């Protein structure tokens, strides 16, 4: 008998307990992946017959300029968004553990954006950035004498990608703050006291002692933030719909439009499969990189 198993439990009982969840999960998550892979190998608009076209959908991604643009935008969204969330989240956590009082009270408003829906956050920022009527940001620019910079921000194609990246990062920063904070407060105080006696200043304590001690947490957070931003959708979709033009189009929003506005089910499914493979691949590379640093470091 295997250790940890309860006495006298027949194996069928275990399967009986797990079967409903297993069926539901398989039907909702796993079967659709297989189904999408199948659809991605053909042409279909939902009405006529599905027609096999080998890998033609995947090949047309290569020559599709909108897709290429969306992929570059997605990589920007993920890279810049991840960096902001990790750095700001860390800055929030470090400043929070450095104050003497009110930490637990401050933590409550600190975390607020993470519990508000992406749609509400997006709508609030659409209003703040609006030009007609003049929203808070344009109004503030005018009143501090920067009137020449006032504009309808979400119509400016050179700004939209940056804006949706920032708003998305804004919503999720607090998650990383909370993760880093709980790792930092659980550190052994004796080690830090010893460092202080040895004359390490605050910055040295932070970079040479605290951060290396929570390295595993940082590594897990990098994986989490990258896979989270690679599948970002709600905020760009609600704020700009990927536009104007393709200026803030991400792979996910382009896939959604291809499927549900153009009913191009074969090509849309191919983009969806691309998205899954991209997520798994990038996460695997990051995991590999971190396990390599652990061995050498």
């Amino acid at each position, binding site marked *: 008998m295997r250790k940890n198993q309860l006495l006298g439990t027949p194996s069928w009982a275990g399967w009986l307990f*797990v079967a409903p969840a297993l069926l*539901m999960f398989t039907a909702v998550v796993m079967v659709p992946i297989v189904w999408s892979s199948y659809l991605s190998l053909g042409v279909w608009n939902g009405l006529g017959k599905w027609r096999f076209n080998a890998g033609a959908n995947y090949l047309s991604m290569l020559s599709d300029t909108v897709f290429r643009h969306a992929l570059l935008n997605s990589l920007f969204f993920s890279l810049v968004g991840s960096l902001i969330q990790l750095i700001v989240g860390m800055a929030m956590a470090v400043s929070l553990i*450095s*104050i003497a009082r009110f930490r637990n009270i*401050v933590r409550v408003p600190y975390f*607020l954006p993470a519990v508000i829906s992406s*749609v509400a956050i997006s709508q609030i920022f659409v209003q703040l950035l609006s030009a007609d009527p003049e929203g808070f940001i344009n109004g503030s620019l005018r009143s501090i004498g920067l009137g020449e910079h006032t504009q309808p921000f979400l119509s400016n194609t050179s700004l939209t990608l940056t804006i949706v990246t920032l708003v998305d990062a804004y919503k999720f920063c607090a998650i990383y703050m909370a993760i880093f904070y709980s790792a930092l407060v659980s550190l052994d105080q004796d080690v830090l006291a010893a460092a202080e006696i040895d004359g390490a200043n605050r910055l040295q304590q932070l970079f040479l002692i605290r951060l290396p001690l929570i390295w595993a947490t940082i590594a897990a957070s990098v994986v989490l933030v990258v896979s989270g931003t690679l599948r970002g*959708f709600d905020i760009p979709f*609600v704020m700009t719909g990927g536009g104007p033009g393709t200026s803030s189009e991400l792979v996910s929003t382009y896939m959604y439009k291809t499927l549900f506005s153009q009913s191009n089910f074969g090509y849309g499914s191919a983009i969806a499969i691309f998205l899954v493979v991209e997520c798994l691949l990038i996460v695997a590379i990051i995991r590999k990189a971190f396990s390599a640093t652990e061995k050498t470091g």
Partner: protein
Amino acid sequence: MLSRHKLTAWLPTVLVAIFLVIQIFPIVWVISASLQTPEALARGPSNRLIPDTLYFGNYVRAFETSPLLQYLLNSTIIAVLTIGLTILLAAPAAYAIEKLRFNGSQIVLNYFLLGLMIPVFVALLPIFQSLGFLGIRNSYWAVVLPQVGFQLPVAIYLYASFFRSIPNELLEAASIDGAGVFRTFWSVAVPLSINATITIVVYNFIFIWNEFVFANTFLTSDALKTLPVGLNDFVSDMGRRDYGATYAAIVVSVLPTVALYLFLNRRIIDSMTAGAVRG
């Protein structure tokens, strides 16, 4: 002139204050804007943070001109069904994986955890078609079933780490006393896991209440829309005409999660952190 020492002593406090303002600013702004009269809003006072009036007409109009109340009800029904079903499926599954340890239980756990890596987008079209085939597109189940499927991995993960902490002796004592597998689970393990269940319920509630993609894709009838989707339609509908009502609708949509958060803040932060750093 501040000395170097004083500056480093004050820096964290200043930073915390700045972060604090940034984190609460949007929500404070929208609440304040929602309480101003249409005349005040027309003068461009959306730049003012403290409203000069406490005018509730925007809320009255938001409820009168849109099915906001219906959206609120739909979101509540969907949240209750989804959370109930998730708990009902996840608790026994995690218990079996951790405590009944049948052959292959570790493989089953890893299979569930694989779900954490899968973006929902890949399932959208197949689920859309299946729901149509089953004739339940445009029903509450069209959103409940997919959400349950995608919430299961996190719920099972959280339950499994809780059940791992229950000593086997406790459960074995019950079975020696003659309780069968089901009795032991139901009358020993389930009561012990109340605290874990509350954490999982709260964690799921935030996600389900805020969910957008499934609801936007699988529900088209106004009578079934959830708050995030309804809010989005409301703004594109009214956003150009009635700003006050738009601000009010935004506030109404975030109120339930914010209120819950104010009561259960530490538990929510901890559960969202635990749910995030799985594995």
